[in-house]
């Protein structure tokens, strides 16, 4: 069983794109064996 979700959110109004940082956490099904992979993609101008 594979579940896929797509989330979206706007940039925060006060965010400085040059230095803003995003924290991301995936606490789904903690304690289970398996791999966890996080990929980040972004345009060069960001």
């Amino acid at each position, binding site marked *: *069983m*594979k*579940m*896929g*979700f*797509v*989330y*979206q*959110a*706007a*940039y*925060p109004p*006060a*965010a*400085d794109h*040059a*230095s*803003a*940082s*995003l*924290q*991301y*956490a*995936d*606490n*789904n*099904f903690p304690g*289970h*064996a*398996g*791999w*966890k*992979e*996080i*990929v*980040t*993609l*972004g*345009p060069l101008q*960001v």
Partner: protein
Amino acid sequence: MRLQPTMPTWPRSTFTPAIIALWPGWESSGATRAATPKPSSSTRAPSRSCPCRCTWPNWETCIPRPATRRSQEAVPVGGIHRLLGHINQVLHNRDLALFYADHDIKLDEALALAHKEFEVRHDIYTWDALAWALYKNGKYQEASDAIDNALRPGVSGCSAVLPRRHDRRPAGTNNPGQRPGCKRRSASIPSFTSSTPPLPATTAAVARASRIDREPRTKSCSISDCTFFLPARPGLPAAAHAQSFAHPMGNFSVNHYSKISLENDGIRVSYIIDLAEIPTYQELQQGNITANVADPAVTSFVASRGRSSGVVSAWWSTASRWPCVLLSSQVIFLPAPAACPP
């Protein structure tokens, strides 16, 4: 273990011919014979109805202690491998091969025995014995291939860790008193077999080791520091093979994939969670659903899982919680092995 006068007497018919045949071999073993007490007059058969009464050998003198297990000189192996060789030349060649490999003796003969066993039997235990013998003989690549074959779905004897196929008969077919409301739930409850012996130790250990090598790795990333680029696992959602395999990470594993992409209008997170057989079964039970994508209840359940808090969370360091919005959700059920939920 010594036969006491109070122990029951075994009639001769309960002994298989193989056991009877091996007994002279035990008697001819000097160390075993010396350690085996002679039956006293009180332990002899009391009547003609029980004509066979045997004294068991003293196993402690034959089985090596753990501290001296690897020491060839300290292991009185004569009786044991004679025993294993006499019981059944076909089935227990495997045991004899494992014994030789365990004690690092007659390794070439162990490999020959494993190959000979493999000619007549291809179950998981034979693959395991062959892998162990190959490994002990330094043929590591062939041993690795044998282990892969042992863990291959469909190999006989590997059903110990897999639940049986769902019983999809309609409720009430075999139980007229069952309530109709239990239909869906009973259809998703597999039964587990407990009579099958466990996985061979070698294969199970290697499987655990390979699983440990792939322990989940967690990375924290920053939007402003997107220099590292992890390769995406290729085609995860599109990996619906026509052929069914057990989950490579184990039946209990849960795998996570997150892709955070920066778009012009905001951030988009594509999150895929891959549940192996057992977590899938738990999810199906929790949602009281069946593995049917076309079922509206399944779609609703998955969407609710996506909206629930704690699935993923992301937030800006300069802001409060990230107000993420679920755009879409999808679920697929891959073809599963015969004994597993999808």
